[in-house]
């Protein structure tokens, strides 16, 4: 008998209806939560912050408008309109007020906002001035840090302006004992508190907040029970009436109590998932190992004859659709860094049990099937791969890859488990890891990982080396001394001297990054502790404090660096051309870089640079005339290239650089050099500590920020032109890996993925022909296996032809549902900005020869 039941279950006709309804409306901003939150805050001035947070959550759960969408089997909606979003003024609000009039027309992730909502929010916002986490964080940062951020060395925008999220709570626990069980635990802990305890005040306030939050969640579910019953009474369609009655029964029972069926477990799961995103605006709230914690309920129902695989599949499909119903509005700049309306709710299947046995079960296959049935960006679906992963599971995953939806992402247990152990996890916890957000591994229900703590642009410190620590070449380019003065680059005698200057700039900037993150961390601790989330994270109840204050067992901060490929190619080119072969001097190279290798920049960038320059002139009290503006624009546009002769000289230098071997072609010397370059980021990072008592750990991935942050970065010595995208993740620079996918994989695997324990991201793009037929699938699986044998950590694939993507750019109306892989997530292609679309199109496309 086969070990797994892997017949392809048909898609229920309900699912396409749910999907269509999802895309009926443009995403919309709703004000209800912000109003309720503010009402509560106004009424609780002076109380402990943790209590105020719990009161506010209760007030929201009791009064937020509730909606059930047509045809739903699993209910609970955060907004009246599908894919709408609530706003979270406790974290930041000024940006939205500033963008009220542009948010519905902007290129990345537009949201509709009604005039009435604007008015309501405007009123609400009056309360929040000076009270947000972002304002407190700013106050806590060093001046040097703020200056570095202003000059785009790094951006901690994610948690600076929003909640943290990036967590997988202990779903299994709520499914098993319900919030009633957690309340009982908190009450027991409360009883143990002694009046004489040093932390009595903090502890009791926290435990009471946990109890109040859990009760609020129960109340919220009961409102749905009542709504379903009311709707059932009015419903004339018998079949739907029956469904509504069942929904009412489910919501009356869970999440208050433990689930006693798979259906109840699904409903309970959904309330947890949704309410976490009502409490705070943090994204990447990741369901994690759904196939593991849901399986006992499925198995029991199946054995008792209470459920058919078909119905279980339909329920899962419903959840998959609902994960796309949640949404979040970010500020315009962040929206480009996280483009595609993504909430990064990562759900993972397969892998090992805590005991180290293979964990694949029927639900693992059904997770793949659900993703095939909905073909939507959420959940960010991942699979775990280890030496014992069943072949049939990977073949099924490859079939999903072949659909072109960019899912699943593949993760390598053989790298990630030891990496997590090296960060202090027990072996059982490490084996039980799941992925948060894009690529960040952690142990569910025990971790506050701060996984997406900042983007660090590794190209910028090299620009500082070229200009003695001053910012002359970035989009700001105002000549301010940002980093240490590492000396006149043209006088450097050896490559080591040059490389050390880079490391000096790196180390300095990394400290400032840590300074920024820790300031933000402190601000969340003080202003936005999250009692509801903390009720599901071990050992908050035991320690008597929320996750934001160190209640979790494992605490990390994981900022991600990107630009490895550019810096490898750049430093290697300098080493080869300037110091070894001596075919060009540093002065010549610098001149060519300063002149963008003889090329113009785009009008749009030239306009931005001109505006910045004119602002500076104005601020300095210098005269600004039409003529000066025109001249400035011309100088910026041409990058100071005044003659064809001059351009030709710089282009020749770029051609020389082009001929130097590049990362991504399985050239051992270059690839080992890349490994060392990555260490300039990953090694210093692990020496820092955060206010929650945890360690910093590096990630190497860009989300989609390599495009907007590339637009802030001048030309680099790898021949990359000014303001163009930076290489994504640990992938080779686009178009520079020319020896096929195995060579790219071999190169990327030469990096030390283990030390980047906050995750690495490797994007590959295949032409659909490469996965044709059964042999296409077999060879694809062999490629993933071969890469993982060499200790690669993660890989993901776009399987859409370049022609298709080009056509989708021209005719977006024909490709409304085309989903592509962006970075650690998939998104609807047509919702991405043009520059990000171009970046995806330009990635190297692999075929089978």
């Amino acid at each position, binding site marked *: 008998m086969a070990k797994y039941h892997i017949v392809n279950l048909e898609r229920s006709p309900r699912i396409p209806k749910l999907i269509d309804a999802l895309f009926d409306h443009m995403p919309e901003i709703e004000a209800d939560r912000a109003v309720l939150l503010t009402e509560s805050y106004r009424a609780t001035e002076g109380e402990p912050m943790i209590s105020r947070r719990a009161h506010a959550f209760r007030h929201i759960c009791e009064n937020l408008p509730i909606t059930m969408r047509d045809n739903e089997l699993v209910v609970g909606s955060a907004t009246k309109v599908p894919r709408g979003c609530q706003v979270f003024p406790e974290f930041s609000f000024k940006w939205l007020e500033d963008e009220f009039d542009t948010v519905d027309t902007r290129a990345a992730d537009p949201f509709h906002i009604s005039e009435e909502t604007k008015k309501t929010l405007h009123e609400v916002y009056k309360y929040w001035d000076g009270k947000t986490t972002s304002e407190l964080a700013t106050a806590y940062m060093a001046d040097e840090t703020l200056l570095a951020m202003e000059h785009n060395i790094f951006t901690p925008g994610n948690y600076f302006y929003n909640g943290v999220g990036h967590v997988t709570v202990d779903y299994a626990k709520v499914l098993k004992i319900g919030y009633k069980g957690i309340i009982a635990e908190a009450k027991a802990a409360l009883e143990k508190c002694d009046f004489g305890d040093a932390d009595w005040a903090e502890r009791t306030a926290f435990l009471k907040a946990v109890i109040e939050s859990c009760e609020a969640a129960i109340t919220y579910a009961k409102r749905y029970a009542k709504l379903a019953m009311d709707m059932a009474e009015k419903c004339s369609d018998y079949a739907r009436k029956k469904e509504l009655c069942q929904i009412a029964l489910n919501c009356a029972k869970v999440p208050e109590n433990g689930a006693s069926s798979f259906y109840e477990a699904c409903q309970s799961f959904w309330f947890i998932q949704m309410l976490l995103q009502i409490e705070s605006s943090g994204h990447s709230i990741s369901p994690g190992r759904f196939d593991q914690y849901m399986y006992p309920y499925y198995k029991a129902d199946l054995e008792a004859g209470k459920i058919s695989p078909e119905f279980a599949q339909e329920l899962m499909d419903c959840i998959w659709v609902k994960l796309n119903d949640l949404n979040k509005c970010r500020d315009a700049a962040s929206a480009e860094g996280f483009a595609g309306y993504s909430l990064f709710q990562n759900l993972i299947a397969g892998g090992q049990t805590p005991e180290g046995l293979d964990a694949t079960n029927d639900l693992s296959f059904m997770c793949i099937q659900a993703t095939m049935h909905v073909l939507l960006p959420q959940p960010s679906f991942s699979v775990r791969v280890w030496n014992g992963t069943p072949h049939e599971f990977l073949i099924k995953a490859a079939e999903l890859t072949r659909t072109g939806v960019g899912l699943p992402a593949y993760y390598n247990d053989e790298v990630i488990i030891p990496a997590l152990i090296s960060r202090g996890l027990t072996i059982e916890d490490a084996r039980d890891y799941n992925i948060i957000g894009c690529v960040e591994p952690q142990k569910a229900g025990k971790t506050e990982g701060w996984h997406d703590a900042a983007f660090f642009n590794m190209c910028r410190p090299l620009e500082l080396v070229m200009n003695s620590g001053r910012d002359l070449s970035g989009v700001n380019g105002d000549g301010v001394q940002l980093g240490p003065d590492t000396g006149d680059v043209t006088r450097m005698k050896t490559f080591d001297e040059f490389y050390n200057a880079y490391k000096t700039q790196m180390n300095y900037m990394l400290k400032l990054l840590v300074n920024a993150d820790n300031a933000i961390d402190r601000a969340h601790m003080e202003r936005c502790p999250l009692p509801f989330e903390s009720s599901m994270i071990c050992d908050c109840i035991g320690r008597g404090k929320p996750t934001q204050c160190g209640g979790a067992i494992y605490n990390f901060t994981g900022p991600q660096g990107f630009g490895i490929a550019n810096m490898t190619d750049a430093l290697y080119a300098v080493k080869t051309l300037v110091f070894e072969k001596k075919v060009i001097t540093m002065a010549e190279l610098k001149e060519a870089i300063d002149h963008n290798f003889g090329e113009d920049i785009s009008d749009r960038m030239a306009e931005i640079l001109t505006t910045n320059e004119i602002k500076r002139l104005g601020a300095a009290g210098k005269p600004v005339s039409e003529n000066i503006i025109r001249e400035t624009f011309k100088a910026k546009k041409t990058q100071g290239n005044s003659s064809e002769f001059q351009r030709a000289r710089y282009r020749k230098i770029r051609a020389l650089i082009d001929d130097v071997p590049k990362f991504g072609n*399985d050239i051992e010397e270059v690839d080992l050099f890349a490994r060392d370059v990555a260490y300039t980021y990953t090694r210093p990072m692990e020496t820092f500590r955060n206010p929650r008592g945890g360690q910093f750990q590096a990630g190497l991935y860009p989300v989609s920020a390599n495009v907007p942050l590339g637009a802030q970065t001048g030309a680099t010595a790898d021949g990359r032109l000014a303001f163009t995208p930076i290489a994504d993740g640990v992938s080779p620079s686009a178009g520079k890996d020319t020896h096929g996918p*195995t060579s790219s994989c071999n190169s990327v695997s030469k990096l030390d993925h283990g030390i980047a324990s906050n995750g690495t991201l490797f994007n590959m793009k295949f032409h659909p022909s490469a996965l044709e037929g059964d042999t*296409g699938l*077999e*060879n694809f699986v062999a490629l993933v*296996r071969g890469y993982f044998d060499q200790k690669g950590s993660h890989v993901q694939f776009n399987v859409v032809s370049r022609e298709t993507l080009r056509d989708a750019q021209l005719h977006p109306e024909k490709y409304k549902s085309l989903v592509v892989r962006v970075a650690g997530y998939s998104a609807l292609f047509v919702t991405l900005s043009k520059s990000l679309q171009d970046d995806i199109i330009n990635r190297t496309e692999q075929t089978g*020869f």
Partner: protein
Amino acid sequence: MIDSNNQLLAVKGRIFDIQKFSVHDGPGIRTIVFLKGCILRCRWCCNPESQSYEPETMLQNGKKKTIGYDATVGEVIGTVVKDMPYYRRSGGGITLSGGECMCQPDFSTALLEVSRDYGLSTAIETTCAVEWATVERFIPLVDTFLMDVKHMDSAKHREYTTVPNELILENAKRLSKLAKRLVVRVPVIPGFNDTPKELHDIAEFAYDTLGVDEMHILPYHRLGYDKYIGLGRSYGMGDVPPPEKPKMEFLRNVCASTGISCYIGG
């Protein structure tokens, strides 16, 4: 590196490309080593730079590139084994193509022997238009012979490839009795061999005479066009369009009617 066979590792040959992640020429994920020099001059040849043994200059994307260089077996195998993890996982290995690898038998057999020492699956693409004694040397070293049989009529064969087919067919008969695995491959060239009868004759020969059970028909394509221009040569096929999918499907059925398993592409 396995160094027990220093003599083999030092054997020199002339190649012009090593292509990774090849999935259409033999089982699994393979690396193809392209050897320089060929006996035939097929009008449709998509690798015209492979034909002459002498290195040549070809314009590629506006840049001059020298095609053809000498390499030792040791150097070649060093590149090939970099993809060992993928061969292991897919049952793949090395494929010699060309050109014609039988034109450089010392190098080819040395490379194949060393490949076998590494446990790689071995395949060659060949026409076997050489004396039998040479073919014989390859038999114990090759897991899969991908052998071209382009036409059953010798005069027409000669007209389009400059070489008659008697030796090829004779070698095919002898090889079929001794090879571990023999696959017959036919490039389907409009105006040359793309009629049902011509293909049927080849299929019949393969299945009945040779006793081969697998055949690949490869549709003519124009990807070599730029290379001819880059070499300063004229393209012998003019504007002839590649055969369409339905036609290939039809021809596949014609071949399969003999009883042979016939696939389009590799």
